[in-house]
């Protein structure tokens, strides 16, 4: 039996220091598009910067009503990093039409929300804007990188008793966003459904590696040496799919695809501090020929032993195709009789 809330779930959506890509991704919700998907799930966007009709003073009044508690709402979705600089004055993002920094609006509105959802890795962990190279002092809502804290503080809980729900990803899959909101609407998404970084476990308990179309190349350590080649991307081209939380290769993107199966590395964009890899994003760092970033839960000695064994057993077909951008050696056709 499905438990339903008596009323619609109302969502207030703000963009902080964002590229807007999380909204653009969410708009791609299969197969109906976002507006109809949310409506069918009884979710109402009270205001959304890309979709709402209202702007200007009308929005400022609405936000003020939400801030004062005069107008109740259920979920605060925040997209983008919170810019608190310089020296905490929030100067690098003032909400247009007023004088208050967006980070102050977010901090105040979070106190009134039943749930707070960080949409994307910037709102969750700070991500690329949180670089020390800029004076913006960008933070995530409850983390900055792997460090708990962020804008709201490490122990902060929203009105419902949940921490910030981190739908991370750069950008997150539209399904992660929509299903998280649906889970909240139905009152079934609880603290136990979040992992240690506050990410919904329904997608974060998987690894991007699960279901990777390059699986056979991975098994035999038959590696691509350059972009566009068919082989496994782990050994040379920086792929972190064996470490990255996400069901990207199970649910797939944009009609059935993903980063690795389009020929480029998973950059672990759902993880805190993904923006600061060891070395370059698209090269695998190695020590004595062994990749530094090994598959999670795998001891180095086992990885090395398995690699040696796999490479010695690699079928000629797999070895040859790994360094081509089309299949040049097809699988042997066996007679079934």
């Amino acid at each position, binding site marked *: 039996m499905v438990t339903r809330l008596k009323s619609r779930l109302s969502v207030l959506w703000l963009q902080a220091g*964002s*590229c*807007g*890509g*999380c909204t*653009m*991704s969410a*708009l*791609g*919700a299969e*197969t*109906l*598009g976002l*507006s*109809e998907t949310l409506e069918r799930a009884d979710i109402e966007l009270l205001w*959304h*910067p*890309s*979709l*709402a*009709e*209202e*702007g*200007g003073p009308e*929005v400022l009044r609405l936000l003020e009503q939400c801030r004062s508690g005069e107008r109740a709402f259920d979920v605060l979705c925040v997209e983008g*990093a919170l810019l608190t600089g310089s020296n905490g004055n929030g100067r*690098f*993002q*003032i*909400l*247009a*039409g007023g004088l208050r920094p967006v980070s102050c609006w977010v901090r105040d509105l979070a106190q009134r929300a039943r749930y707070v959802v960080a949409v994307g890795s910037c709102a969750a962990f700070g991500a*690329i*804007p949180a*670089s020390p190279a*800029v004076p*913006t002092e960008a933070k995530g809502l409850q983390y900055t990188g792997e460090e708990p804290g962020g804008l709201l503080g490490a122990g902060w809980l929203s009105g419902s008793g949940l921490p910030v729900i981190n739908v991370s990803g*750069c*950008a997150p899959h539209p399904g992660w966003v929509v299903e998280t909101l649906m889970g909240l609407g139905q009152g079934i998404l609880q603290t136990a459904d979040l992992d240690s970084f506050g990410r919904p476990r329904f997608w974060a308990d998987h690894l991007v590696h699960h279901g990777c179309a390059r699986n056979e190349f991975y098994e035999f350590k038959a590696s691509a040496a*350059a*972009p*566009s080649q068919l082989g496994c991307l782990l050994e040379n081209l920086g792929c972190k799919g064996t470490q990255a939380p996400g069901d990207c290769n199970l649910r797939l*993107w*944009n*009609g*059935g695809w*993903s*980063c*690795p*199966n*389009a*020929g*480029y590395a998973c*950059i672990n964009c759902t993880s805190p501090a993904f*923006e600061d890899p060891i070395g*370059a*994003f*698209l*090269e695998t760092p190695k020590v004595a020929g062994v990749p530094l970033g090994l598959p999670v839960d795998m001891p180095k000695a086992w990885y090395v032993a398995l690699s040696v064994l796999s490479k010695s057993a690699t079928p000629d077909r797999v070895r040859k195709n790994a360094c081509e951008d*089309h299949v040049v050696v097809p699988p042997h056709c066996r007679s079934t009789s």
Partner: protein
Amino acid sequence: MSELILGPFSRVEGDLEVRIEINDNRVAQAFVAAPLYRGFEQILQGRPAQDALVIAPRICGSCSVSQSVASAQALAMAMDVVPPANGVIAANLILACENAADHLTHFYLFFMPDFASGTYGGRGWHDRAVERFKAQSGVAGRQAQKARVAFLHAMGILAGKWPHNLAVQPGGTTKSVDLGERMRLLAVLAEFRSFLETTLFADSLENIAALTSVDALERWREERPAEVGDFRLFLHIAEDLHLSTVGRGPARFLSYGAFGGNDGQLFASGLWRDGDLSPLDLAGLREDLSHAWMCGGSQHPDDGVTMPDADRLDAYSWCKAPRLNGETCEVGAFARQMVAGHPLIRALAVVADGRASVQGRVVARLLELALLVPAMERWVHSLAGAEAYCQSVAVPDRADGFGLVEAARGSLGHWLSVEGGQIRQYQVVAPTTWNFSPRDKAGQPGPLEEALVGAAVLPGEEFPLTVQHVIRSFDPCMRCAVH
């Protein structure tokens, strides 16, 4: 004289604040501000050169591929690599897919909902506009979202996902496309064509592309009732509200040219200035900082610096002010088609004092949908089965490069300098940097600041609709403008 400070704007990509001075119910002066600074150019400095492919696209989630292509081209120049034909075609398809999806999103989700406003109650077309375009609930907006979801499957096939992928590399693209995938691309394009020909135009793309004069457009509009096709409804609204006379920007249009290949560019490059076309020459490009919260003077992006200074006197925006030979230029679909020489767009400029208008900008964007989709169909057919998509070349220790791209919203340039394999300097001049720039040292207003002068402000209007039409007609992307 009174004053209004306008913001926040919904259905505009990113943060925008506009201050207007009003005289006799018209905008007398406008000051356009970008109130968000993230600092991508600073973030890129000191990173391994190829990290630009990961970081630069994240400037913007709407123009992600455009940023990606610009950084790949800048790196390609630095690396001295030329992608193979398949890689060029696939990259063109990926960029065209984003540009077309952006045009669709702008028309249906960002621009048209303004006409459902209660302010227009009583106009002959208002009920239809509410039914079709009301924000969130309008039927057309939902149809467009579905069409967009299906169309972005082309992005999946070619680039894995959208936004923010790494499919476009300096040496080509990462995803070869097999026969079945080519057929799927054609099926996706056929579905999108069907949406455009049924819902948007109620006519074939070829007939829309063949409209070559203001009279022809007028005849086409009157051929059938106003509610047949959303484009026709827009033309009726534009006629009623005189949108061809509103929002006129500078009579100078810039395009870097788009979708190059073996047989030249689909849209040619150049500068259209007061009725004359000249070849593209960016030697006289400078970013003026006199009204931006930035340290430093006016520089070509080769030598540009980005160093925020929140206390700079006379500054009112984080946006720099690009000028070509000291002058503003409008960029975007209208500018691109002016430069490329589409007769309808040139004709629309002739009747608008040589300038773009609210109507002209919207027509140019929809016209581009009619031009891009058939081009994409041709390009899919021209992908060659078993040939390479990508070349691999190492990053040199020291090199410079730039990449010039036409994003949906106009001319986008990246300028890069590599030293010791790392980014020494990275400068981005984006379409909305041009269009929504603040004043320069000479006091010359930016294109939107110029286009807003004269816009009507109704008595008592606290968030003037005409001003909003003018702003949205540019399809601004503030995230790109200040990166």
